[in-house]
Every structure is written in C-alpha cells, then in structure tokens.
C-alpha cells in the first residue's frame, strides 16, 4: 500500500513518495509542508559538502527547571537532533557558505543559550573568514525553560549581526514556517536580504495573543510571508524549488567588487 498524505490547504491526497520527490511541496496548490533539517541541508548544499560544527554540544538547565532535561531527551530521541539548530560549513554551487538550519520539530525551534551560542559563533566565524552566512529560521521564540538566558540570546545574536555588518560580510535570512517571538525580534529580522518560503507565518506576537489583545478575528493572510513582503519586511517570497538558485545569485552578486 502506498502511503497517502492529505494537503491541509487543498485537501488533495498525495502519494508520500511524490511529495518527497517534490521537496515536500503540494504539487496541486504549492503548500509548503514542514521540511526536516537534513532534507534542507541536502536541498541547499552541494553534494556531501556539509560539515557540521559543534554537533556534540547540548543544552544545560541553567534555571534547574524540573522536567526540562527529560523534555530535551525526549526531543533528542524523537528528532535525532541535539537541539533546535544545526550549524556547519558547506559549499553552494561551489561557493563557501556557513549554514544554520533551525528545527521547529525540536521544542518548537525555541532559542535557548545553546541555539543562540551556535548561531552567534557561526556569524562571528563568517565575519572573520569573510564567508556569507545563511540562516533558515523556524522558531516559536525564546526558550521559556532557560528564562533570562534565552532573552539574552536575542541581544547576543543581534550584536553578532552588527559585527557582520561592520566587516561587510553578507547575512542571508530565510524565514520558514513559523518564525515568531524572540527570533523575529533579533537576527531573523536583520538579514542583508530576507527571503521567505510561501505561506510562512512570520511575526513577533503569535496570532492567538494578538487576537486576545484586540478581541477580534485577524484578517485573512495576516502575518503570512506575502503579508510581510507587502508590508516591507521581506525582500522576496521564494518557492522551495528555487531557493538554492536564489541564494546562489545573492552570494554571487555580493561577491562582485565594483571598485576593483
């Protein structure tokens, strides 16, 4: 029996293999399903070029919150990842890049001290070695279990972007579904170029919180990628199948030295 997956938007039943061969995008309505970290890396990097950095690092429990360690372990076992971001170096159409891919399936992609540290470290390495940094964001925001240390990662990652800006090394951000909270209010909003996958939810406060504040239903398409583009916060909405070539174009054009 072939496995069938139903598209949540157009409700068409899709053969799982067809979906997988189509980069987890609905062939009927272009709905972008969740894309796992490893699939993303294969999709973006040249074959076998990705070398992971800091893969052994794991989160601590700085506030000694009960049950946090068990939760981390559960997510580790389930996702086969050590935490909510994978970072490394690779080539993209032959060009050297540093790549960070956030994992929404690991505790909602939340940013604790480890996620902030790994992303900061990559950006600083990029600034030193003059290598562009690409970050695929997917996060519900700061990791509540790490309290104030999570909040401080917003300042830390943003200060690393300041260093990239000052050394004139490009930062390319790709917003994927969903990117909210403390990640939106830090590095995810600070790319030299900010791209987004179609339909991704992008915002600071989540829709439920806003609905609770204003006491009325939110307009259709509110906070979606296309909405953010139309409001001036996203440069382009790019289909998954075109993402690698789009990034390749950006890397190439940022390499051109017009004064030489």
């Amino acid at each position: 029996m072939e496995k069938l997956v139903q598209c949540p938007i157009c409700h068409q039943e899709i053969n799982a293999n067809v979906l997988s061969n189509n980069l987890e995008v609905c062939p009927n309505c272009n709905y972008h399903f969740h894309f796992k970290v490893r699939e993303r890396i294969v999709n973006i990097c040249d074959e076998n070029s990705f070398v992971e950095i800091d893969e052994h690092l794991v989160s601590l429990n700085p506030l000694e919150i009960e049950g946090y360690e068990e939760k981390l372990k559960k997510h580790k076992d389930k996702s086969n990842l050590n935490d909510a971001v994978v970072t490394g170096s690779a080539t993209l159409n032959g060009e050297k890049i540093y790549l960070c891919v956030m994992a929404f399936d690991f505790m909602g992609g939340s940013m604790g001290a480890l996620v902030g540290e790994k992303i900061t470290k990559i950006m600083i390495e990029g600034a030193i070695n003059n290598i562009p940094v690409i970050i695929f964001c997917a996060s519900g925001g700061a990791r509540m279990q790490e309290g104030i240390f999570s909040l401080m990662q917003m300042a830390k990652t943003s200060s690393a972007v300041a260093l990239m800006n000052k050394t004139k090394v490009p930062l390319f951000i790709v917003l994927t579904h969903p990117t909210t909270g403390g990640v939106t209010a830090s590095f995810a909003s600070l790319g030299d170029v900010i791209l987004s996958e179609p339909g991704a939810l992008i915002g600071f406060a989540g829709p439920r919180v806003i609905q609770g504040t204003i006491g009325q239903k939110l307009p259709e398409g509110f906070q979606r990628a296309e909405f953010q583009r139309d409001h001036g916060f996203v440069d382009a909405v790019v289909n998954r199948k075109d993402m690698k070539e789009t990034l390749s174009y950006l890397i190439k054009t940022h390499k051109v030295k017009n004064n030489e």
Partner: protein
Amino acid sequence: MSKIELKEMSERLSRVDKYTKKRTPWECVKLSRNINRPGVEDYIKLICDDFMPLCGDRLYGEDKAMLGGIGLIDGRAVTIIGNRKGSNLKENIDVNYGMSHPEGYRKALRLAKQAERFNRPIISFIDTPGAYPGLGSEERGIGEAIATNLKEFSTLSVPIISFIIGEGGSGGALGIGVSDKLYLLENAVYSVITPEGFASILMHDPSKAEEAANIMKMTAQDLLEMEIIHGIIKEDKDGAHVNPEFSASEIKKTINKDLNILTKKKPDSLVRYRLKKIRSIGASKEQESYSEPLLKVLQKIY
C-alpha cells in the same frame, strides 16, 4: 563607647533595617507593578537639573509609551529614554500601559543615534510588561524595530546605563536595555515572559503565576547572582513608592559614579567591553574559549 558613638551606631542599624526586607519573588512582581511606583518621569524630576522631552520617530509617529529627551544631571548632558506607564487609569490608557509600538523603539533609536553624534551618554529607564502585541504593531514591524535596536545599541560609541525600575518584560524591555551597565531596583523584576505567561505555557495553568515566579529567577538578587546585572539599586523597605527620593538619589549616585569612569574610555574600548559582556552570556562552558574569535573580529573592525 561614648554615648554619641552609641547613638550613631543605633541610627546606622535602624537605617540598615529600614532599607532591607526580604521579599518573595511574587511579592516583588506585585510591587514592581504597583500603580504608585515611581516611573521614568518621577525619576527624571528627582535626578535631572533640567529635562526636555523630544517627540517622534521621523518615520511614522509619536509613541507616548516611550519617553525620550535630553536632560542635565549635575551639569552633564545626557539622553534619557524610558517606558511611560502612567500613574492612574487615565494615564495608563493614554500611554498604552507602557507597551510601545514600533515607533516607540524607532524613536528610542533615533534619540540614541543623536546622542552618539553629540557624544552624550544614554540613560534608559525600563518599565514595561512588553512590546504591544496588536495589529498595527505587527503591520509596522515590531519584531524588526526591536531587533534593530539590539543590533544598533550593541555598537553605539557612547556609554549606556540601563535601570529596570519596575517591570522588565521580555523583548520589549530588552529593546532599550542593551547597555554597558544594567541595574535593577531592589523590587523590580526582569524576565523572558510574565509569570502568568510562564504558568500558562509551561504549567498549563495561568493561576499558577506565583509558583512560576518562584522558579523563574527573575528578581534582582537572582539576576545579580547569574551575572546578568551589575548591581541592585536600593529602595525604601516598603518599596520605592513610599520614598521615591531615596531610590532616585541611589540612581543618581550610580549614574555619576559610572559616567565618571565610562566617559573616560575610548569609544572602541567601550564597545569592545560591551560586546564581550553580551557575547559571554550563556556561552557553553564545555566549549573552547569564545572570546578569541570575538577579539579577532574586533581587531578587524577597530
């Protein structure tokens, strides 16, 4: 011991008693939100010889929830920014309970850049439950506004001192809180989310806010022990609202002491020190030295 000495000593002891009182985190949360608690405008009146508020972000509008302007403290010109919360219901509504829209953060950044241009130190007074989670706020990019402030404040070349005087609520507080020196008032709190939010998300029961406050490590003492803040500003034993003059004079002393040192530093060493401090928070212990790459990149810049 002479009678005079004895009298002096007992007076000193009573003063110590007057200004220290151990509170539970939840008591601090409640006190930090007390409607009579002195706000940024009260402290400006008590600290500054003079002050002129300045309006607008030059992009969209004026956000009353974010106060900004130029003040004189003992003859020294400083730029002051701070969250206005209001001290009665009418004022609360007028300033949106201290919750800024993007234009508030952009106004703060405009004034900070202006301060940098004219070599004025920046003092921020933080007192907000958070940035405003509403339609207009999202449409005009509240996330981008806060993010940009975090980035820009981290490399401003003038001294920045921040005081959390009441509620330090999450990204909305941090948006004017990246600084060289960060202080909490004794009964102020600073956290990634309100205890109510923490209880509702992690304990699935918003009524467990008190329990949440107890484990969130959000009090001045906790934050000092975790090296997030540089010091604690004393309040009257019954809270800053009972004796605003006292905490104001403690704040003023701290500002003068810090600025005497910070204004003598060269801009690049000021920024290096700030970046190093930000970089070190939550850096994994098992990892090799984090400061070396940072120094390398700073050498490239400065």
